[in-house]
């Protein structure tokens, strides 16, 4: 790790001001940034911690939606949304290990948009809205590919609002070493249709599987997707699985997520 300055503002405005410096980077739970800094792969001059901003923390349950502050840890989401949005709480409760869940935050995860992260699948499948210090971004417009998002310079996530589906489930198949998703599928059934988001598999990061959504909107059962297939073209391939395997896995998990959602 190289030397850096550390600031911990208490308001969003102060954080944005501190981030105006080109060499400053925001720090939330630090579960990705800190390891890369320790390996000297990342060398911000200033880290702007968002964890001193109380307004970014906590969970609010509304009638048909839940809102999660950007600096809310996975552990808090797992605990506090267990009743209001159990599929989302279960997803949060299975990210990483207890140390990760007690440091990592939803805002950090969505801003980083790791192609194998769990939260992007939940946000995209739920049709969540990512709220920043400047605007509201629908999930469909937010994810722009591997580690790429609609966030602009100086824009930070403040909270995320998730509509609560009628039924939902997330099924993750873990990469054996990192335990990130080799493929993960979030299925959410709403009155006006089903949304299916797949993480871990594509070179473009999280994506919606429209054929499955269409089939499931007519018949919400595992059989509805059993005849479908995903094109391996564009899927990731590495030590842990070929593109064909990931495409197959995503399909299998979609069926399992539908069954789990009931």
């Amino acid at each position: 790790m190289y030397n850096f300055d550390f600031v911990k503002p208490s308001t969003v405005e102060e954080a944005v001001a501190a981030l105006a410096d080109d060499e400053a980077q925001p720090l939330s739970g630090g579960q990705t940034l800190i390891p890369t800094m320790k390996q000297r792969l990342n060398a911000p001059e200033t880290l702007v911690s968002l964890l001193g901003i109380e307004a970014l923390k906590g969970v609010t349950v509304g009638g048909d939606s839940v809102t999660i502050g950007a600096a809310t840890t996975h552990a808090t989401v797992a605990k506090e949304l267990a009743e209001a949005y159990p599929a989302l709480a279960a997803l949060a409760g299975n990210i990483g290990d207890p140390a990760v869940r007690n440091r990592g935050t939803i805002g950090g995860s969505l801003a980083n948009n790791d192609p194998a992260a769990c939260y992007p699948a939940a946000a995209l499948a739920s049709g969540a809205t990512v709220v920043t210090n400047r605007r509201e971004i629908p999930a469909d417009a937010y994810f722009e590919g591997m580690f790429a998002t609609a966030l602009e310079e100086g824009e930070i996530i403040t909270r995320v609002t998730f509509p609560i589906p009628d039924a939902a489930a997330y099924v993750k198949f873990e990469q054996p070493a990192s335990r990130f998703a080799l493929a993960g599928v979030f299925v959410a059934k709403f009155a006006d249709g089903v949304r299916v988001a797949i993480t871990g598999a594509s070179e473009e990061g999280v994506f919606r599987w429209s054929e499955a959504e269409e089939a499931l909107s007519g018949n919400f059962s595992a059989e509805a997707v059993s005849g479908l297939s995903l094109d391996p073209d564009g899927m990731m391939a590495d030590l842990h699985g070929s593109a064909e395997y990931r495409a197959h896995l995503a399909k299998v998990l979609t069926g399992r997520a539908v069954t789990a959602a009931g």
Partner: protein
Amino acid sequence: MPKDGIGASVKRREDLRFLTGTGRYTDDINLARQAHVHFLRADVAHATLNAVDTSAAAEMPGVLRIFTAKDFEGIGGLPCGWQVTDKHGQPMQEPKHPIMAEGKIRHVGEIVAAVVAETLDQARDAAEAIELDTEDLPAVIDMKQAVAEGSPLVHDDLTSNLCYDWGFVEENKAAVEEAFQNAAHVTTLELVNNRLVANPMEPRVAIGDYAMHDDSSTLYTTSQNPHVIRLLMGAFVLGIPEHKLRVVAPDVGGGFGTKIFHYAEEAFCTFAAKQLRRPVKWTSTRSEAFISDAHGRDHVTTIQLALDAENNFTALRTDTYANMGAYLSTFAPSVPTWLHGTLMAGNYRTPLIYVNVKAVFTNTVPVDAYRGAGRPEATFQLERVVDKAARELGVDPAELRRQNFIRKDQFPYATPVAVEYDTGDYEATLDKAMQMADYAGFETRRAASVAKGKLRGIGLSHYIEACGIAPSNLVGQLGARAGLYESATVRVNATGGLVVMTGSHSHGQGHETSFPQVVADMIGISPDQVEIVHGDTANTPMGMGTYGSRSIAVGGSAMVRATEKIIAKAKKIAAHLMEASEADIELKDGAFSVAGTDKSVAWGDVTLAAYVPHNYPLDDIEPGLEETAFYDPANFTYPSGCYICEVEVDPDTGRVEVQSFVAADDFGNVINPMIVEGQVQGGVGQGIGQALLENCVYDADGQLLSASYMDYAMPRASDLPMIDVDHSCQTPCTHNPLGVKGCGEAGAIGSPPALVNAVIDALQRDGKSVPHIDMPLSPARVWAAMNA
């Protein structure tokens, strides 16, 4: 069951300090005026190294000195401790193994320069300012390509990348060929024994220290064998005589073989400390460990088994390419040869065996012994090919094994691969394991799995290992450049307590608990009166350390011999005190008595007399009570056993879940059953790791793709089943005083083939079969094999 002597599950006394964080590992040691070294390591696999420009780096804050290969001119390379002779009678090719890259980089991770600075951060900062003038060369990675015509050379001064081409037993080759021609059935299997990274919990650490007042050097290091390091480094690298060099290996957090070897970092820190007149410390990061700790396994093998019409094994032949990496690590040449070829008989009567091993240099990290070392590679291929033969012939794999076992009335049994098994009863362990696993009830469990959409398989392996390493005169003939005896000094104090100074080294094995059980049992006192000292050349006799499941079999035997000398002398003292004949003295429960009388004198009275010799046979014996013994074993020991594994396979994802694992081992006599159980469970855990998860992978350019835990999958508790261990089948070793065989490596040797056999069994369905899947059996690989 004895309360706390031999055979009792005494709780591990060392765990108090380990579990309360009060152990003293090498990294816990910090010396006054200590400087820190950061090694600049190669990030390419193969390149010429034309120049190392340290001028800018040397001016950086805190830098004390930057070392490059030039600083080691005239200093020896790291020695190799074993010379293998090839099938033509020629010695292996043995290139220099420099402390730092000399003119050429040969693997990612090789040390190119070393920066010693006041702080570690300063050293790292300066290392980034070092400029290298290099020219990339094509990397030599694939072993078969490496020995093909026209391959680039890893070492320009060698004639090829072939270290040796070993044939064993060369005289048997023609007879083996003939047996194959006459065979009723031949089973052939090509397989890979996957390359592994040992990953002990504690990374390696070295601290060099130099004392000007007596011109002596001290090295603190994470070693399994401090005396070996002292001898190798002192005599062959730095030219420091033993009396001026002390090596301390305090608490060591796991070794698994990779801490046997003498590494460049140890020599560097010792050397630099003397140059700078300051202690120099290095602590490996986990990332460094992946590219600098010796790796394990990495064999590519074709094995063939010949059977007659009655399914008797008539011959076996096997061809292996064994990866040496870029340089020969300390014991690397012995692993695919004498620790591997000699095991190819397994538990079977196969009369004719021929083993060919081509050891190959590649642009990868050196490969050396890893838990089991050669024996897992032998067991894996043998137990896989036997299983494949059973499937091809349509017979029960357990019964094919039973039919071909060496029978219990055939011991001692001389195999066609140069070793003589002293004892064993393979049917006993097979029957025990089958009973523990409810082998007969498998079909019911399979049906239950099928009902929930899973495939279920059962697999077994029956292993043998040669451990208790090793008879010095034998290994000397085989090319070892060291003896493999062990030593112990037993010092009895005036008030009756004992200190045992052993050349064995405990880095997780529990010697501080099990060794006192033996000594205390012999005298009839509490183990609490016995302390074990190990890990410091300054206060232990010259010993060869711990690996090859040798500690209790060889180190324990030395301790027994020394204790026998103590008892013999104590009896003389007791006889004098009681005015009786020495021949009439009996020792029981810590008291000496005169046979047939009620005369008795306590252990403590005798020990006090030895040190306060007022009433003492000074004309016959010296005061004091301290004895040393060196024990050189007459043979290897041959533990064996049967492992049975059951798995479920998810046909939709290829995921394998281990449902049950039973281990029935014959370790001969057992000192501490609880520790033995833990050793087996740990070994099986590592074996399951190899079979299901772990894989060290290089790309064609020699970059390590699995260079962190993001891509190198270590087994976790959730990956492991309950491991049911039994060691009630006991055929004691006939040639050591305790009748013990050793248990440290068995689990890692026997478990991979049991697991793979179980998965292959699970995939026999609907007329389909999968002949083989290379480890690790990751979900992706299993799914691909099912859908090939």
